[in-house]
């Protein structure tokens, strides 16, 4: 199973009760690739992202990250559920950034970043601290190490959230509408950090409505609607010359 694929999703199905959210998604993401997921709200793009790190359990198909099956062990024909500790271990290699930041409000910026490296990876406090300060510097917040999240702007909080995810040295980063909850003038700083991260060779899947970012940074964009992949390709082709009428309609409404 080891090949160039970081994410290999094969006919993923997910439903909440009778509500079918993902209807057989196929998605392959190469190592070092930046993929933007586009689509109207309710198209299932956030759910797909949450399935990739097993925050949601898929109902059908197979999902591999870096060659290993997420959430299950396959023995012969049967799938066995993994133990929570095994799932946690799989997740620790996948960073996730949320729309609403979800920083830990009772911890300072620095404590937010070092919590998982110390508690999950067993890093020493000194080493975790040193690394966290370095990460905070790269997201431009070295001077905010001792501030609490409530003392930061939305854009700053989101950059701390990115640093927190990077502190676990993930091999894959998932972004769930990272700029949707931000004031327009704060979006740029967050996108800059993501651009730098993309340039450094990180594999990224980004759910976004920022067409400028998708066009400029993404290697490939995937357009989803009603639980299926409608169109995918180079950003230039999909965003500027969409073939599918649904993609055309969506892009007309957002651009």
């Amino acid at each position: 199973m080891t090949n160039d694929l970081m994410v290999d999703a094969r006919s993923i199905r997910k439903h909440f009760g009778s509500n079918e959210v993902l209807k057989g998604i196929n998605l392959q993401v190469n190592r070092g690739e930046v993929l933007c997921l586009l689509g109207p709200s309710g198209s299932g793009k956030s759910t797909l992202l949450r399935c990739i790190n097993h925050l949601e359990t898929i109902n059908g198909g197979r999902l591999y990250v870096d060659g290993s099956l997420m959430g299950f062990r396959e023995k012969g024909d049967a799938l066995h559920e993994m133990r929570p500790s095994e799932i946690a271990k799989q997740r620790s290699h996948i960073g996730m950034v949320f729309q609403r930041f979800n920083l830990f409000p009772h911890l300072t910026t620095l404590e937010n970043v070092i919590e998982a490296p110390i508690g999950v990876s067993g890093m020493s406090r000194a080493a975790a601290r040193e690394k966290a300060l370095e990460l905070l510097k790269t997201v431009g917040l070295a001077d905010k190490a001792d501030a609490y999240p409530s003392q930061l702007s939305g854009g700053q909080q989101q950059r701390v959230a990115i640093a927190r995810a990077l502190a676990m040295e993930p091999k894959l980063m998932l972004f769930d509408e990272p700029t949707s909850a931000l004031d327009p003038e704060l979006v740029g700083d967050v996108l800059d950090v993501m651009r730098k991260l993309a340039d450094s060779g990180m594999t990224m899947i980004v759910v976004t409505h920022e067409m400028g970012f998708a066009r400029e940074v993404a290697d490939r964009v995937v357009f989803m609607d009603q639980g299926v992949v409608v169109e995918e390709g180079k950003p230039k082709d999909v965003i500027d010359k969409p073939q599918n009428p649904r993609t055309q309609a969506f892009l007309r409404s957002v651009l």
Partner: protein
Amino acid sequence: MTSRSGTQNDDIVAIPLRHPWRWVSAALVVLILGAFVYSLWSSPNVNHSIINEFLFDKRVIGAAGLTVLLTVISMFIGTVLAILLAIMKLSTNPVLRIVSTAYVGFFRGTPLLLQVVFWGYLGIIYPKVEIGIPFTDFLLFSEKTSLVFTSLVAGIIALSLNEAAYAAEIVRAGILSVDSGQTEAAKSLGMSTGYTLRRIVLPQAMRVIIPPMGNEFISMLKNTSLLQVVAVMELYARTSQISSQNLAQVELLVVAGFWYLVMTTVLSWPQSYLEKRYGRGFSAPNQQQRWLRFSSKASA
């Protein structure tokens, strides 16, 4: 920049509105209260020298100490059990959920006094306490119940188990008050359920848990007086024992009341410290010194 007290050189200087009724109502309340306290204090039926004699009596002080000890121990056991019950009630295991719900229903649904007496009578139901391996003759420990479950132990059990039922709901409310995004963020970083609970959810829940637990602490301190019925010599039992000998009932009630007030006051001090400790990172509204505004004087 505005300072914390909030005035700048170019602020509006207005003549403050007068509030004559504030003064009238305040004076009235103080007058009524003063008259009541005076009538009690000057009553010829209250013997001040008896109050003075027993206020710092060794037996009374010792009993007050026992009351504090009972409160702290029962509160500690009760809180630990409460966290367990709250987690059980929030778990996905239906049996644990039902057991927790039934426990809370039972211990909240019967009077504490009844529970205290029940644990006092435990020796009648189980005359002997034995620890050993079931279905064999091997016995590690065997003793008469009345020697193990002394009235003190029975009292602590009664108070702890009752407290756990109330505190469980407080802890559960605290856990539920933490946004689900926190758990998701913790999961996405690879944290286990237990670690997330300990390091992320409970510390944030504490902010919601502490104020009502302060209430519980004070209730507990006063509820220890119920242990009088199983002959635990706490403050109320001791003072009523003394008054049954010297027949100075009112005076000894004043003595007991004084010490209960002292203890509840002192024990509520750590609460504000804990609230600050667990409120870190949550911006608190700017607390103004209200009584300075009593006469509408702008804080300069």
